[in-house]
């Protein structure tokens, strides 16, 4: 498990750069992670990110896009607008979670 330094702190990440330790994340770090992939975080982004974090804490899994629309109440289109092209992966990266495992 590589350890890297981002925003002045040591972080555990996987080979691609996704955080692997739930508790190493906070909102400040989210801004840095988002900037890394060219996203300027707004309140709309943060609502989604917080849903991901809460759902992960509750279920132990990163929610899939389908779960974000179903359980989180976010429209698919909104997610594609906020996190263009690869919403599921971009969202989990910014939320400091691993990629979702489910197919749908």
């Amino acid at each position, binding site marked *: 498990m590589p350890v890297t330094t981002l925003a002045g702190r040591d972080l555990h990440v996987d*080979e691609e750069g996704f955080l692997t330790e739930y508790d190493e994340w906070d909102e400040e770090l989210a801004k840095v992670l988002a900037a890394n992939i060219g996203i300027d975080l707004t309140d709309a982004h943060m609502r989604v990110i917080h849903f991901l974090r809460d759902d992960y804490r509750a279920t132990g899994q990163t929610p899939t896009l389908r779960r974000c629309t179903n359980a989180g109440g976010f429209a698919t*289109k909104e997610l594609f607008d906020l996190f263009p092209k690869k919403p599921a992966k971009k969202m989990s990266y910014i939320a400091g979670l691993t990629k979702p495992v489910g197919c749908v």
Partner: protein
Amino acid sequence: MTELLTKTPPIPSFDDEAETQRKLCLICSKGSLDMAYPGLILANAALGEGVETHIFFTFWGFDIINKKTMNNLKFTAVGNPATHMPNMVMGLPGMTAVATHMMKKQIEGIDVPEVPEFLDLITGAGGHLWACRMSADMMHLGKDDLYDGVEGIINASEFIELSEGAQVIFV
């Protein structure tokens, strides 16, 4: 656990040039419940990866986008040895309903949407749906009979034009 200290944090490459130019065309030619899903799941996954995605519905695949049948696709175990059920039994009256009910419950159990909702998901994610001209003519169906997200009824040549440079998967 050996810990490797990397100076530069790895950043996932989400917008790799080559990947964003990828294009996928799926041909859905079957109308049974079990054969509707592979195309829809792949389309949805491709869209989630930023791949331009088109689905062409032809012949029995029309049942997936026909407003009259899309809510009511069926599954039969007859002639499908992978179900490991005797054909004689599965061919009895009412068994298709039983098999369909069981499959729908399994699909719902893993939080995968029913067909119409799946189409909503795909069009919401920017996927393109096309209906086959010949099938529409054969079945006497017009655009109004089809799922609202279907962009048009196109012929085989138009599909060939549309799929230029795309990876094509026939289901």
